[in-house]
């Protein structure tokens, strides 16, 4: 019997994608569908003096125009996470209106929606809407936003802070340890703002059916149920059971499609007003202006070491931008998804992080691939490498000295950090050792010395990361301010013929759930993969769900499905025992059938399924049917880890950095499909390297975006990269049934500091100790001249 777990099974979703038959939201056309365009603010901060829609109303094809004065979505879109000030003051949570009425708080904020028969008519009429603004000074830098006299984003509070927060040991204790440390490494830098840039722009269609009194929202979201909940319970106050949210194929998310956006709510509201379906699809510039961004931290950090190179204390202060409004997960990103990873893979005994999170006149900042964890890893891994240079210790050796020793989380306990978490299992030595072997570290150092003699600038950069995935135990996140539980739902419906439909609350936007989930369900049931179908992305089909982000689909969503599979087998055994006239204890299940131990008497999964639905000869007291739904709430996060190593060459004339090699040894726990895990790592690495070398969202002093198109925003291209060398170690997760940890974000977490470390290493002999990301030729060249 063929088994599937651990094999590079080819993806079934590829058949439709490769034929151009994927069903992305913009591909859908509904009968009577209208199109829409937004009138968006050309200012980052302004008063709206007047909005005149009269010319637009009369334009050809216009169906309706709504502005902030219309009674749309009284409550605005909500924030899903509450992080209060450390002195107890409640998080400042401004109303996030669906359309701005009196005041603009970021470039591209919507002032009006124009709905017309065709897209061209909607866009033409939007041009005719005449808005008068009074421009106001703006602030886009999170640190400047906290300076006295900074322009205020929301007038009702005395300054721009949304909250401030700290975690770890007592600050005074950490400061004292730093004062008496043998060596202190210090860095000030910006973990700059980047745009997620899923290649599919956001797209929505809202459709109100007057006869059924029901709404359907087709949306390019990563979590349809959460969108429905936020839309119904908060933004519009409409009944949840009357709303169906559908997200079929979604062209990448990387965090940016987690959130409930204003356009989703507005279209839903307006579709009832006009009684027709409305479509809106973002163009790329709108995507740059309105999709939530990532990162944007200003960091000042000190790390103290004793004379043997052991870390004794770590103190960091950060300003982390929230943008103009609080996006769904925004407050969690620089806090619970960031500060809690400050232990890294090291035994640091004293840690303190303070975060000030200001509003800025920019679009919101929220989770972007890795969310808070890449920023934590960048900090730790740059600091360690910088300290190694300063103390003249090899960067690998300094890491080895400070690693938490291996622990499996079963016979050895998990590792309790100074910053709230308990790591599940880990072997940090193992990944670094393997990564160095893959690279040929010692040979590389010789090659580097040789190259330097010839004037060639080669550098190697290491990074050993840990991340917290499988988000998350509901009670834990609840105590940390989450306004939702973070379990997952897995529903297994065995059809009478023994074919299996699986409904999952996780959502695939490229990860390959349709294949991977079918792999393990087929194995657990001992049936062919072709007999298992995976359904996701439709709230009318899937009971509930929390969606996909934080590498949670398999660890949490997969575990929920396993629970239901176990229930199926448990009930199946009762039916099988009855049919075989044997005691349940005497049965064993393998290869798709129940067999009476030690005999050849058996009954197949298919026959038991049929019996469950045609229960003529049936065990007493057992309900017909074979259909189970389960909620799985994890007992802990999962903690994947790994080592990433970059080799770069710097052009001494131009400062251009070429990535020569990239080695990734990751430990994501057990692997269901190695082909897909490698693919996740490749994609993550390229995004992380993109941040290190190329990408940056730049707002100028007035809050205008300088990088609002693919002409200005440097996306990584195929010819920026070598082949990526991957390998794995396997340390199973001890607390979920598949032993998986998650692989979606690893690449983007480990790679960024590895590359910057490599660039600094290449230039170290010139006295360069740090370069601000993205490490552009100009910045490198300037660093070399100093």
């Amino acid at each position: 019997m063929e088994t599937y777990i651990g094999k590079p099974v080819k993806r079934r979703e590829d058949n439709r994608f490769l034929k151009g038959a994927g069903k992305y939201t913009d591909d859908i056309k509904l009968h009577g569908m209208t199109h829409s365009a937004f009138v968006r603010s050309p200012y980052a901060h302004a008063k709206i003096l007047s909005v005149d829609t009269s010319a637009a109303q009369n334009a050809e094809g216009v169906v309706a125009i709504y502005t902030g004065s219309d009674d749309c979505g009284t409550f605005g879109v909500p924030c899903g996470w509450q992080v209060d000030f450390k002195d107890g003051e409640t998080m400042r949570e401004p109303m996030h209106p669906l359309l701005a009425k009196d005041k603009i708080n970021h470039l591209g904020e919507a002032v009006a929606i124009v709905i017309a028969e065709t897209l061209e008519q909607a866009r033409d009429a939007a041009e005719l809407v005449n808005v008068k603004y009074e421009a106001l000074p703006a602030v886009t830098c999170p640190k400047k936003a906290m300076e006295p006299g900074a322009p205020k984003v929301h007038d009702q509070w005395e300054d721009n802070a949304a909250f401030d927060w700290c975690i770890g040991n007592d600050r005074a204790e950490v400061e004292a340890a730093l004062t008496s440390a043998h060596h202190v490494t210090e860095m000030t830098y910006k973990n700059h703002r980047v745009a997620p840039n899923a290649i599919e722009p956001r797209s929505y269609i809202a459709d109100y059916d007057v006869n059924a009194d029901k709404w359907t929202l087709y949306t390019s979201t990563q979590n349809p149920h959460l969108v429905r909940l936020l839309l119904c319970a908060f933004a519009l106050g409409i009944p949840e059971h009357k709303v169906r949210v559908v997200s079929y194929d979604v062209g990448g998310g990387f965090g940016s499609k987690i959130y409930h956006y204003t356009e989703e709510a507005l279209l839903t509201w307006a579709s009832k007003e006009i009684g027709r379906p409305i479509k809106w699809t973002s163009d790329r510039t709108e995507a740059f202006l309105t999709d939530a961004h990532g990162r944007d931290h200003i960091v000042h950090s000190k790390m103290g070491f004793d004379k043997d190179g052991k870390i004794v204390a770590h103190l960091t202060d950060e300003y982390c931008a929230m943008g103009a409004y609080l996006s769904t997960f925004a407050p969690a990103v620089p806090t619970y998804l960031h500060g809690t990873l400050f232990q890294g893979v090291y035994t640091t005994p004293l840690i303190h992080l303070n975060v000030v999170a200001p509003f800025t006149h920019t679009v919101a900042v929220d989770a972007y691939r890795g969310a808070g964890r890449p920023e934590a890893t960048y900090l730790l891994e740059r600091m360690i490498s910088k300290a190694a240079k300063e103390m003249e210790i090899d960067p690998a050796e300094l890491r080895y000295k400070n690693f938490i020793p291996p622990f499996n989380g079963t016979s050895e306990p998990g590792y309790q950090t100074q910053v709230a978490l308990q790591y599940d299992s880990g072997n940090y030595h193992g990944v670094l050792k393997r990564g160095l072997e893959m690279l040929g570290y010692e040979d590389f150092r010789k090659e580097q010395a040789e190259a330097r003699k010839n004037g060639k600038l080669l550098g190697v950069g290491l990074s050993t990361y840990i991340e917290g995935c499988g988000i998350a135990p509901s009670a834990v996140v609840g105590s940390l301010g989450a306004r939702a539980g973070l379990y997952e739902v897995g529903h297994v419906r065995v059809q009478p013929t023994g074919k299996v439909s699986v409904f999952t609350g996780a959502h695939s936007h490229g990860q390959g759930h349709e294949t991977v989930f079918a792999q393990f369900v087929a194995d657990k049931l001992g049936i062919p993969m072709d007999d298992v179908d995976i359904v996701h992305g439709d709230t009318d089909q899937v009971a509930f769900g929390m969606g996909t982000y934080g590498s949670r689909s398999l660890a949490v969503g997969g575990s929920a499905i396993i629970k239901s599979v176990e229930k199926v087998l448990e009930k199946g055994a009762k039916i099988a025992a009855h049919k075989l006239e044997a005691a349940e204890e005497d049965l064993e299940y393998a290869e798709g059938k129940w067999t009476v131990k030690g005999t050849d008497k058996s009954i197949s999964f298919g026959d038991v399924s049929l019996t469950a639905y045609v229960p003529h000869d049936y065990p007493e007291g057992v309900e017909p049917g074979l259909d189970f739904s389960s909620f799985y709430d994890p007992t802990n996060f999962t903690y994947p880890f790994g080592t990433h190593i970059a080799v770069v060459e710097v052009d001494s004339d131009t400062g251009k950095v070429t990535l020569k090699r990239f080695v990734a040894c990751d430990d994501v726990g057990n692997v269901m499909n190695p082909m897909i895990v490698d693919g996740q790592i490749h994609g993550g690495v390229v995004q992380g390297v993109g941040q290190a070398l190329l990408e940056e969202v730049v707002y100028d002093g007035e809050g205008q975006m300088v990088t609002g198109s693919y002409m200005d925003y440097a996306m990584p291209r195929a010819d920026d990269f070598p082949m990526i060398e991957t390998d794995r170690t396997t340390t199973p997760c001890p607390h979920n049934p598949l032993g998986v940890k998650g692989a979606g974000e690893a690449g983007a977490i480990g790679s960024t500091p590895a590359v910057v470390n490599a660039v600094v290493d290449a230039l170290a002999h010139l006295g360069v100790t740090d370069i601000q990301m993205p490490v552009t030729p100009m910045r490198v060249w300037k660093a070399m001249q100093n």
Partner: protein
Amino acid sequence: MQISIKVNGKEYSHDIEPRISLAQYLRETLNLTGTHIGCDTSGCGSCTVHVDGASAKACTLLAVQVDGCEIKTIEGMAHGSGMHPIQEAFKENHGLQCGFCTPGMVMTAADILKNNPNPTEEEIRHGLEGNFCRCTGYHNIVKSIQHAAEKINA
């Protein structure tokens, strides 16, 4: 304006607004939604099709500009449920994740291989410069095209 074009072997004739892009025409008028729009400004390559046998970005061509031309889109790469060797190679090498860039990648790959049946890795990467993929890190796309070249040349 009246245009007559041949798309995937079929003749079409429509009266369209002159400002409609080829990508919109394919998607909206012909319902060929495999041609994706990721940017509208020639930046991302999601909309790549073949115009008279050469690859072109359908988002920045007006439909009226290709009046009289022969267009091939992803839907025309293979018939029925079969796959073109390039499509097969993408599947075998996991050259796609979310699938959004994929039609453009396949059309570009076909163009690369048409002009250079035995490209080096560097030549493939260079040939993909105009196509963004945010999911795969390009690694498996490059492998897919190498593999497709082997298949086609075999």
